[in-house]
């Protein structure tokens, strides 16, 4: 196949374009595209870059608040955190690459999301990872789990950004399609933020970072192309991450950003040089002329098609102010990185590529972005579905001790220590001691201040599956609650929407419902969406994954000395339950892990209660009157108490009426706090005066967790069960 190849319907199809989409291309071009041009259209109009199935619905999400500096549309979203400082963050998926090559797939996922954040001028300060694996006994899982975790650590540890938290689920629906979602949070000065809109006709376009190879070039296309010679050489390859180069790139970019030399900058993510140049040109309403001979190349005889579609990692594209090339070049050379002026801004409105003295492509930029197809795909959603389950609808267990041990020792609630001990979660010296992995939200101090960011990722796919709207709401609410439980004020979220095939109405229905729920929660909680990512077609053999809209939430503690963590601090503290307990067992973990059942709908999220209860809890933490708090989520109240006991090696004596619904129900908007005895009256009064459900349930102390006559387990036994899942699993499978 050569650049002169005649475009046939087969080639169009191989590029994942429909005949109708190809007609649109003909119309935009006013002529037949050549192969390079077709390749450029195909990646720009891919689901990944164009959001053609999701755009319509994403638009409905609330994206604004007084503290939002930049919402969706840039490389990452930005919020104001006071004192002329901004937090910049985003989450992104790397699901398919991680299934093919778990180490490199996960590693390059981390690298990609880091670039989205530092390209805006932020120093990355924290990484998070949201992982979903198949059933532990699936033969591929040991390899996938250990590879993904090693890859995330391998990249994050080397670049020196702490990986401070995340989530890990196991469910059959991910057997053939694991999910690897990575999030980065960075901090910048509010007046030193960099955007991607190119400007200034004649300004130089500069390529920095690693050289371009044939990495990750659109597999389907390449595999079916007819190669004349050295086809072995040209085969598309898995992208390999180079965190060493990334670290240099971070430092070099931040050094250059301290000057005024940059007009615009954008990382080369998916579809590398194509999407970065097209997006920069489109945002600025200008044209780009690139001379591909000047692109630093790692391999010989690369074609324009390959250069434009390559997904080589650790590269950035910048527009500089005229005359600042030498200044910038000196910085990149100091850091041993490639630096090349590869073109300039034009007023043509076209992306014009020259190669070996000829025009290799000449495409009007606007249609690449604006004319990309947008679909209103049919969807099915039963919004009224409501099948709650309570204690009487579920068989009881005879032994609550065993039930608790099974839950906290099972794959979904066991300690993730085996994972996070492979991540440097302390480098940069601002991970607050009690905010190290294991708490509700990670707490990362804003360097040199007394403020801290609270960061969490959450989603309960069981709920989204059972009721997409409530599930979408719940995912947002849970991040909000997790931040609140540390004393943080939740500010904004990013998301990574992982779903199956959107061409199937029931999957599209899940998507639409989840967005509705998310939107409602974000709006009510004044907790806007400022960035995100969509990953569709997560399917194997026609079976989709559980809908997984992973939410990454960020909040702020104005004074980090007033914070709470999950461990009990003192014997004798009074244990208090905040929030209403009805005993919802629908779609609960209890039902799944103890009975192997997934039925019913989850507890509805009462956003008003969520807000009321959370604001109350936070207000108490902010006074410094309590330092122990944990929200209630998967596994219910008993699991929450057990987690608090295990974190502190202290037991508690709890008195509770009620049944397994009370102990294991997953009602929302609830927290457990431990309150010093002499503070109890004041706090209780505050709760009563604002109508917050507030109940004293026991006292901290002893070596056992005791709940009336139902539960009595030694904390050490709890810990053994909790800590042994991963080590035992890998001692069997390494």
């Amino acid at each position, binding site marked *: 196949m050569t650049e002169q190849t005649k475009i046939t319907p087969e080639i169009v199809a191989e590029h994942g374009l429909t005949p109708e989409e190809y007609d649109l291309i003909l119309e935009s071009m006013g002529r037949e595209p050549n192969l390079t041009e077709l390749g450029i259209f195909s990646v720009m109009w891919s689901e990944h870059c164009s959001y053609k199935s999701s755009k319509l619905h994403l638009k409905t999400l609330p994206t604004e608040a007084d503290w939002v500096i930049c919402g969706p549309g840039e490389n990452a979203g930005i919020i104001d955190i006071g004192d002329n400082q901004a937090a910049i963050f985003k989450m992104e998926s790397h699901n398919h690459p991680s299934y*093919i*090559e778990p180490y490199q797939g996960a590693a390059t996922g981390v690298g990609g999301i880091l670039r989205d954040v530092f390209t805006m001028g932020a120093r990355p300060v924290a990484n998070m990872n949201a992982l979903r694996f198949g059933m532990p006994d699936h033969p591929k899982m040991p390899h996938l789990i250990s590879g993904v975790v090693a890859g995330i650590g391998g990249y994050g540890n080397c670049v020196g950004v702490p990986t401070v938290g995340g989530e890990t689920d196991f469910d059959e629906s991910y057997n053939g399609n694991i999910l690897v979602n990575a999030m980065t949070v960075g901090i910048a000065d509010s007046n030193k933020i960099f955007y991607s809109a190119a400007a200034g006709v004649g300004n130089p376009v500069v390529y920095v970072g690693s050289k371009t*190879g*044939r990495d990750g070039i659109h597999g389907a296309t390449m595999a079916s192309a007819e190669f004349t010679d050295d086809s072995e050489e040209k085969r598309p390859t*898995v992208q*390999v991450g*180079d965190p*060493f180069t990334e670290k240099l790139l971070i430092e070099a970019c931040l050094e250059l950003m301290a000057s005024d030399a940059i007009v615009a900058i954008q990382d080369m993510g998916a579809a590398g040089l194509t999407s970065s140049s097209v997006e920069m040109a489109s945002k600025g309403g200008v044209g780009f002329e690139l001379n591909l001979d000047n692109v630093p190349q790692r*391999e010989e005889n690369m074609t324009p098609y390959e250069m434009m579609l390559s997904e080589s990692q650790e590269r950035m594209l910048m527009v500089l102010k005229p005359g600042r090339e030498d200044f910038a070049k000196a910085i990149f050379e100091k850091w*041993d990185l490639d630096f090349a002026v590869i073109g300039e801004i034009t007023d043509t409105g076209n992306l014009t590529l020259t190669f070996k003295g000829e025009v290799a492509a000449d495409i009007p930029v606007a249609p690449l972005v604006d004319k990309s197809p947008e679909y209103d795909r049919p969807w099915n959603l039963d919004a009224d579905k409501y099948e709650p389950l309570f204690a009487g609808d579920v068989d009881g267990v005879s032994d609550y001790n065993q039930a608790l041990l099974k839950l906290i020792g099972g794959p979904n609630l066991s300690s993730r220590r085996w994972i996070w001990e492979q991540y440097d979660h302390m480098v940069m010296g601002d991970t607050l001691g009690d905010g190290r992995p294991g708490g509700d939200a990670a707490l990362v101090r804003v360097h040199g201040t007394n403020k801290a960011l609270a960061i969490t990722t959450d989603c309960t796919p069981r709920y989204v599956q059972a009721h997409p709207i409530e599930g979408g709401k719940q995912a947002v609410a849970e991040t909000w609650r997790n931040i609140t439980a540390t004393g943080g004020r939740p500010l904004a979220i990013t998301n990574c929407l992982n779903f199956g095939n959107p061409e199937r109405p029931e999957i599209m229905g899940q998507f639409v419902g989840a967005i509705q729920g998310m939107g409602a929660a974000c709006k009510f909680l004044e907790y806007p969406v400022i960035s995100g990512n969509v990953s569709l077609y997560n399917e194997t053999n026609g079976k989709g994954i559980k809908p997984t809209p992973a939410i990454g939430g960020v909040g702020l503690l104005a004074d980090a000395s007033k914070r709470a963590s999950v461990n009990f601090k003192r014997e004798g503290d009074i244990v208090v339950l905040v929030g209403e307990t009805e005993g919802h067992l629908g779609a609960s973990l209890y039902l799944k892990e103890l009975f192997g059942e997934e039925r019913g709908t989850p507890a509805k999220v009462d956003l008003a209660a969520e807000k009321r209860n959370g604001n109350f809890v936070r207000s108490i933490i902010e006074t410094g009157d309590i330092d122990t708090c944990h929200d209630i989520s998967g596994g219910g109240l008993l699991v929450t108490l057990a987690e608090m006991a295990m974190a502190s090696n202290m037991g508690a004596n709890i008195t509770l009426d009620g049944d397994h619904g009370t102990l294991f129900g997953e009602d929302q908007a609830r927290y457990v706090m431990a309150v010093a005895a002499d503070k109890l009256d004041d706090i209780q009064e505050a709760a009563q005066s604002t109508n917050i459900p507030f109940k004293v349930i026991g006292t901290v102390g002893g070596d056992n967790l005791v709940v009336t006559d139902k539960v009595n387990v030694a904390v050490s036994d709890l810990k053994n069960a909790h800590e042994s899942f991963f080590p035992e699993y890998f001692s069997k499978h390494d």
Partner: protein
Amino acid sequence: MKARVHVTLKAGVLDPQGKAIRHSLGSLGFDGVEKVRQGKYIELDLAETDKDKAMAAVDEMCRKLLANTVIENYSIELD
């Protein structure tokens, strides 16, 4: 019987280590090093004495563990 296995990156796969070594050799003053690729070299002592059986076994070891065939090639010598 002894098996020697070489595991190398497939052509076209980025080799960050090789790249860094080349750079470092350059700063140490070694000119004219045009390319560096780093791979693994693994020696196995086998109880097996039959050459064909040993070859088959090591080949399987390579595919299952020693090499990551998504990005690496391997070759086996016996003696």
